[in-house]
């Protein structure tokens, strides 16, 4: 008797470097995001230490600006984005009853581009200083080497490379969700997490090209002395702001919508009810995605675009509150009448509701252009977007981790440690960021490394830093939980939470081929429907047969390495190295194009008995 292990021809590190299995790529995304989260968190903590007292001189001037820029850039591009891609990879194919994503090779390439982009950016710390233009990198501070060192070159190229990876990921998931749903899995039967993944994939498709274009313009300004953003050469500094925010505003929805999706999975599961108002939830998701593109100018009310532009964009921005409100009340009414279990995954989801509502209402306040003249670029904004991104995305990611950990890794995270994690994080989060609303309206601009004593800013900053200690402790508890669980955590059963969607109907962790037989979907909450009908398993839609699998490949890694090497050539103006790096990438593309690779097949007798539906 053989089992699934015999299929793996490659093992150890080589397996991870060459894998095209979406579940393993998902794990790599999560692990890389975790690594960058620790780096970005340390940067944040050092900033809060500097701001603990007025006139402190721990990290001043350029050093502080580097910490601040790297914190923002890292958290957005190298923590939140990849963590979301991690969950999409780990969960979406399982939720729609697919054996894989549409383009497994592209999936691997997307990961390696993101990862090496992130490494490239962090190399800047050791190569003459990190970027220091803020995560938004406004021109001409960032576009002209007159004002900044090579750090900004690392920023431009690091984001360009990882952005290409994100774009690939987005396209891949659009195609996967459109084409690879199991029989019976209509769009209106898709779980909400898959829905949000679908919508954000579309957002990525439209939002990343403007960033790519903007980064290329900045690349030309910096490396070849072009004048796109230089007013003395006929350029315009506001072009970058538009390009950046046409990308940047949808980006915040790219980050928060999947978190909404996670809450829409977690809350129904742990209140044992179906999601209240599923149809309006889907509609609200699509509407938020659409409106996300219409409102970028609300980041630019103080640029001087005039009262008409400001009014139009202000009203459009406020409109987003409506679909968001629909979502909040639908979650509340999902809980209404249910049997609520306070698992760690669920308390993260529940803690999200009040926290995010506070971030949401300050969003409406910020949307009002004249009021924004006071808020813009002050600590009020810092407080607002941390309430949204931490209170939304990060709470969502933690909820998702506790919820899907058993499915991804086959072990349960410890619940007691999980609750410590939650309470330390939740309390620390509010202590850190609540006072920042006040600091903002009391006159503290964002991105400052110090403030003068006796201007009313001392106490607020001190409290805020104290909160950062709590959050740091929470993350340490979480990391300890991960290590401890990996070593001696309880083994997970297939369906530990009495789940509703398809991923809970298969083994934990899922076998390489996901579903031995593609299931037949008979309704929303597919697995729950079967459980209610008294079935233990999904009904198969096909007879048991050979499963076609894609071959692993090292090419995505080498392709990404080529661009990584080429970046150094551009940064240090050595065009031989730049060319050599590009040559490596193109050579890999050529090999990939001419080499016939039909993958391999898994035979039914290689599958585990449980997956074949044979009760052991």
């Amino acid at each position, binding site marked *: 008797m053989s089992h699934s292990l015999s299929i793996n021809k490659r093992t150890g590190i080589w397996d991870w470097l060459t894998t095209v299995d979406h579940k393993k790529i998902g794990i790599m995304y999560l692990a890389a995001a975790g690594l960058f989260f620790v780096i970005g968190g340390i940067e944040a903590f050092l900033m809060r230490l500097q701001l603990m007292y007025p006139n402190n001189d721990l990290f001043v001037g350029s050093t502080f600006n580097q910490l601040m820029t790297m914190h923002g850039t890292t958290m957005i591009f190298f923590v939140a984005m990849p963590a979301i891609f991690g969950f999409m990879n780990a969960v979406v194919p399982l939720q729609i009853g697919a054996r894989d994503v549409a383009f497994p090779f592209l999936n691997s390439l997307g990961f390696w581009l993101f990862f090496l982009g992130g490494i490239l950016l962090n190399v800047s710390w050791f190569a003459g200083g990190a970027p220091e233009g803020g995560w938004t990198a406004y021109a001409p501070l960032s576009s002209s080497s007159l004002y900044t060192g090579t750090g900004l070159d690392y920023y431009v190229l690091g984001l360009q490379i990882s952005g290409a990876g994100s774009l690939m990921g987005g396209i891949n998931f659009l195609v996967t969700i459109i084409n690879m749903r199991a029989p019976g899995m209509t769009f209106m039967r898709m779980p909400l997490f898959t829905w949000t993944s679908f919508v954000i994939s579309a957002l990525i498709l439209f939002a990343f090209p403007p960033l790519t274009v903007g980064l290329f313009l900045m690349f030309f300004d910096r490396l070849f002395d072009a004048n796109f953003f230089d007013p003395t050469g006929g350029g315009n500094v506001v072009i970058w702001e538009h390009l950046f925010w046409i990308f940047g505003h949808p980006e915040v929805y790219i980050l928060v919508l999947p978190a909404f999706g996670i809450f829409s999975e977690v809350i129904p599961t742990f209140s044992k*009810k179906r999601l209240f108002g599923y149809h309006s939830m889907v509609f609200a998701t699509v509407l938020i995605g659409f409106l996300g593109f219409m409102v970028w100018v609300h980041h630019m009310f103080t640029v001087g675009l005039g009262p008409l532009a400001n009014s139009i964009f202000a009203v459009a921005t406020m409109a987003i509150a409506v679909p968001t409100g629909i979502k909040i*009340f639908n979650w509340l009414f999902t809980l209404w009448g249910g*049997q609520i279990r306070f698992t760690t995954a669920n308390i993260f989801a529940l803690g999200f509701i*009040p926290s995010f509502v506070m971030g949401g209402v300050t969003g409406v306040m910020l949307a009002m252009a004249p009021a924004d003249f006071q808020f813009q670029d002050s600590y009020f904004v810092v407080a607002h977007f941390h309430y949204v991104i931490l209170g939304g995305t990060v709470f969502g990611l933690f909820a998702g981790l506790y919820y899907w950990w058993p499915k991804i890794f086959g072990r349960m995270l410890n619940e007691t440690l999980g609750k410590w994690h939650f309470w330390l994080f939740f309390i620390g989060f509010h202590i850190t960021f609540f006072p920042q609303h006040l600091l903002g309206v009391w006159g503290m601009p964002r991105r400052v490394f110090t403030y003068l004593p006796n201007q009313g800013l001392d106490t607020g900053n001190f409290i805020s830093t104290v909160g950062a200690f709590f959050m740091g402790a929470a993350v340490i508890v979480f990391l300890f939980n991960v290590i401890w669980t990996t070593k001696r955590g309880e083994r997970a059963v297939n369906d530990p939470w009495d789940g509703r969607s398809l991923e809970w109907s298969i083994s934990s962790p899922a076998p390489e081929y996901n579903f031995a037989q593609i299931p037949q979907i008979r309704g929303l909450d597919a697995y729950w429907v079967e459980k209610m009908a008294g079935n233990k398993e999904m009904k198969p839609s096909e007879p048991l047969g050979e499963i076609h699998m894609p071959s692993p490949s090292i090419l995505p890694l080498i392709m990404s390495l080529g661009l990584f090497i080429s970046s150094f050539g551009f940064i240090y103006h050595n065009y031989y190295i730049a060319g050599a790096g590009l040559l490596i990438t193109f050579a890999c593309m050529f090999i990939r194009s001419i080499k016939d690779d039909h993958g391999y097949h898994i035979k039914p007798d290689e599958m585990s008995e449980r997956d074949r539906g044979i009760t052991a």
Partner: protein
Amino acid sequence: MIQWQHVKRLIPLIGVMMLTLTGCGKPYLSALDPKGPVAEMQLSLIKLSLYIMIGVVLVVAIIFTYVLIRYRKRPNQDGIPEQVEGSAKLEILWTVIPIILLIILAVPMVSQTFTLAKDYSGESDTVRVKVIAHQFWWEFEYPDLGIKTAQELYIPTGKKIQFEITSADVIHAFWVPALGGKIDANPGMVNKMWLEADEPGVYQGRCAELCGASHALMDFSVIAVSSGEFEDWVKEMKTPPTETVDADLAKQGEEFFNQSCITCHAVNGTGGNFGPDLSTFGDRQKIAGILEFNEENLERWLKDPQGVKPGNKMPNLNLNDEQISGLVEYLVNLKR
């Protein structure tokens, strides 16, 4: 545990309400303590939105708390709760109410946006000021009065000040919280904004857009004085002191200044425009916009400008003690 969560969420809300109502924070920096019509208008809008938003948060908080207490899973609770699909009535309700609330906010918001964008430069009672932001100092020019200052902006109370704001290098933002909201200083473009101060006082101004290493230290002061005092100030500025310094030390300082500093700094109309105009330096309230004005701090600045304001454009001239004491003596005596 659940009740604590409820209480915890309310504490900050009550806090915000109290602080807003009492107008807490230090005077002259806080946007919650407006000292002019622009800041007042903006605060009234902030308050309106804040009250509506507190209402929204309270509704959510009440339903949330009720649900968590009422519907938590009890031990030995079996069975499956009713699988409710949704409710068209309820969903329409929580779509329509937010729309109404947003309309209530949108109407004054749009009207105020246009009020604040008015251009008063044509009116006779308006003081026009050109603001040019530099890394990391502020230049103020009164085109109708023929006066230029740096770091300190004198304005008369009760009159509209019409600003034309631009930048000499990177993007900065001009912000005086107690008088009104900010607007960006973009290189190659001119932005207009008006402010007005109701009462005399020194209002703290800051740069709000990241502009480089010393962004945090790019402060300035707006000094509002009565109309009469303002006119006196204008007169004094236009008739520079003939000879207020006679001490040898100051003479030495002046000579050194004319050799080394004058390429960047102007005094009484002669000199470069790369650094701030120092014509009435002795009247300043701050050194470099951040240090208290005294001879000790001036020495500190001259000895190590990069240490005080990292990344600024003033080089360390490696002055000896004699040169420094001469310069200090000369500069502090540059008074109206």
